[in-house]
């Protein structure tokens, strides 16, 4: 079995073999092994539910791969709702001819990422489509979490709240962008791709009052802050020089005329906390290796503006534009 063939997705013997010899080997748990049409779960509390399809290219990138990303991405969407990630579904769409070896690498890195939070894959699906019908491999994960902290919401921001990011922004986006066809730049940067649950757990255990929380993935920091400003009907003011940005990220942005705030992150959180909790939150985050570069980057200004203002180090202001369009290198 050196390559994935259409028969591996046919629902017949080959599919069974693939499931048993590969997926069960790495995602081994009783619920999954029961192989029913649905997994039956006992959660006993409010449940958080989320989904994402991962279509990243390249599928292997510095600091991770599509598998790690597919786990971290969904674990993070649960985490930022104050939910402890418990169970994931996992659905593969694989191109005929995909190397078995690469699939195993991906599955293995999924298993490793799952271990970080003790999350289980309890139900799955595998489709194999003809050559040219998919770009190598797509993975969907949907996730269930037990809500352990209620009331986190994009609608919750109010005047005076502090905006904190847990680390440098744009690392993941730059790793991917640099490897894009027609760009071909090299950096020693690695993606921030990681599961942020422990960070969230630390905040909850530390009794920080979390008002809003998000993982700034597609659309980056700007998408999160603009959505918050919109949902909570507030103006957010960010100090440009406080936003942690790695030099390589800055470098690629200068080269291509981009802003780091629109680039994707896959292991960061943006948190809004009340002013009183700011220092405590920063302290807690910075104790966790995932949050060592946490920074207070701004605050909620006043009701009614629905926009994000970026204050330059010179004191001048501009709008932090919401991301729009495909990210293309600028010519001017």
């Amino acid at each position, binding site marked *: 079995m050196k390559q994935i063939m259409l028969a591996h997705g046919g629902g017949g013997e080959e599919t069974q073999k693939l499931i048993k010899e590969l997926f069960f080997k790495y995602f081994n748990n009783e619920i999954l092994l029961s192989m029913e049409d649905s997994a039956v779960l006992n959660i006993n509390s409010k449940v958080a539910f989320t989904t994402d399809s991962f279509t990243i290219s390249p599928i292997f990138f510095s600091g991770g791969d599509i598998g790690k990303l597919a786990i971290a991405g969904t674990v993070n969407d649960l985490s930022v709702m104050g939910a402890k990630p418990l169970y994931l579904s996992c659905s593969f769409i694989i191109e005929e001819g995909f190397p078995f070896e690469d699939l195993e690498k991906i599955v293995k890195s999924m298993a490793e990422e799952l271990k970080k939070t003790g999350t289980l894959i309890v139900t799955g699906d595998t489709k194999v489509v003809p050559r040219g019908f998919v770009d190598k491999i797509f993975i969907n994960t949907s996730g269930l979490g037990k809500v352990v902290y209620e009331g986190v919401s994009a609608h919750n921001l109010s005047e005076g709240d502090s905006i904190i990011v847990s680390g440098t922004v744009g690392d993941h986006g730059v790793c991917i962008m640099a490897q894009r066809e*027609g760009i071909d730049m090299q950096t020693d940067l690695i993606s921030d791709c990681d599961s942020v649950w422990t960070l969230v757990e630390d905040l909850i255990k530390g009794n920080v009052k979390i008002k809003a929380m998000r993982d700034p993935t597609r659309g980056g920091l700007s998408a999160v802050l603009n959505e918050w400003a919109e949902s909570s009907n507030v103006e957010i003011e960010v100090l440009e020089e406080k936003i942690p940005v790695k030099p390589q990220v800055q470098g690629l942005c*200068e080269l291509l005329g981009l802003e780091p705030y629109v680039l994707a992150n896959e292991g960061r959180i943006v948190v809004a906390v009340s002013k009183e909790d700011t220092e405590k939150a920063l302290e807690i985050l910075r104790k966790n290796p995932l949050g060592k570069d946490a920074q207070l980057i701004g605050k909620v200004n006043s009701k009614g503006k629905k926009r994000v203002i970026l204050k330059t180090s010179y004191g001048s202001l501009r709008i932090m534009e919401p991301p729009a369009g*495909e990210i293309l290198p*600028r010519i001017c």
Partner: protein
Amino acid sequence: MGKVDFLKDFRDKEKILAISKLIKKEIDRPINVMEVCGGHTHTIMKYGLKQLLPQEIDFIHGPGCPVCIMPKERIDHGIVLCQDEKNILVTLGDMIRVPGSESSLAKERSKGKNVKMVYSPLDVLKIAQENPNKKVIYFAIGFETTTPMTASVIEKVLESKMKNVFFHINHVLVPPPIKAIMESKEAKIDAFIGPSHVSVITGAKIYKDIVDSYKTPVVVAGFEPVDVMESILRIVRQFKEGRREVEIQYTRAVTWEGNVKAQNLIKKYFEVRDEFRWRGIGDIPFSALKIKEEFSFLDAEVVFKDILPNKPIDDHKLCICGDILKGIAKPYDCKVFGKACKPENPLGSCMVSSEGACAAYYKYGNLEVYKQ
């Protein structure tokens, strides 16, 4: 890094605030400054420089973005060329999202047409080697800065005897549109910030004629915020001291003569067109380049002549980009601004890229700091 940090040293807060103070102190009259180049527009916006300058300084965003000024009929050429599945159309960055008369290259790509976005014109050679059975057409855009790269690619195509590379040349020149704007009696422009990297190639000498003709200072400025601030200071001082000169602020990269090697390469393969139509301004004589006749076998406009439309497409009737470029109108004066004309669906050149005056007003217009 040696003794100079070419980025940080020219973004330094202390320097910027000091120059800001000095300008406020020294300015003695209102000055309408046209920053010709989109790169400067970007710096002014990104760093909020207008807020650091006195009310007397007003910026007029010039026609210096090769994407914005591209007339629809030329984009339509690109669209026609990519319809044939034997062709691959290659162009740079965000050019692909600029609308022609009915579509854009990005839209054509989404329909499966062969449109490739590259970061460097050098990739054209790679694409042509990998696709020996396709005709690879480089849709070349850009001012004097980007023209030598096209010439360099032409040279490599000739050297390596590749037969499947063609060039659709849309290289334009900086001085002609400035003159075209100034020739209009109504133009309210007092001074120019000269482009940074155009001038690296051409040298500052190309602006002498403008100063001589229109008695407007031209300061060739770098792209960093300190550069722009210092350039404004220099303009203020020229007025104060009654001078009208070409000055080079960006001395670390620009000379009077420029990059002669690059200039020669341009001369080797290109000649000036009799006329080129600029979106927002209209026809301007001698304002763009084309491939010399002896190399016309590389010229997509010659090779694909039979399929390329050549009817000029007028700017939208209600569009007042021309007046905005002259400094006699602001985007708010346009009847369709923000209504029929928006960044998603620009009717005129000033709305096309985020550096355009109308796009900038549309996006930042609700931020009162910009209306101080």
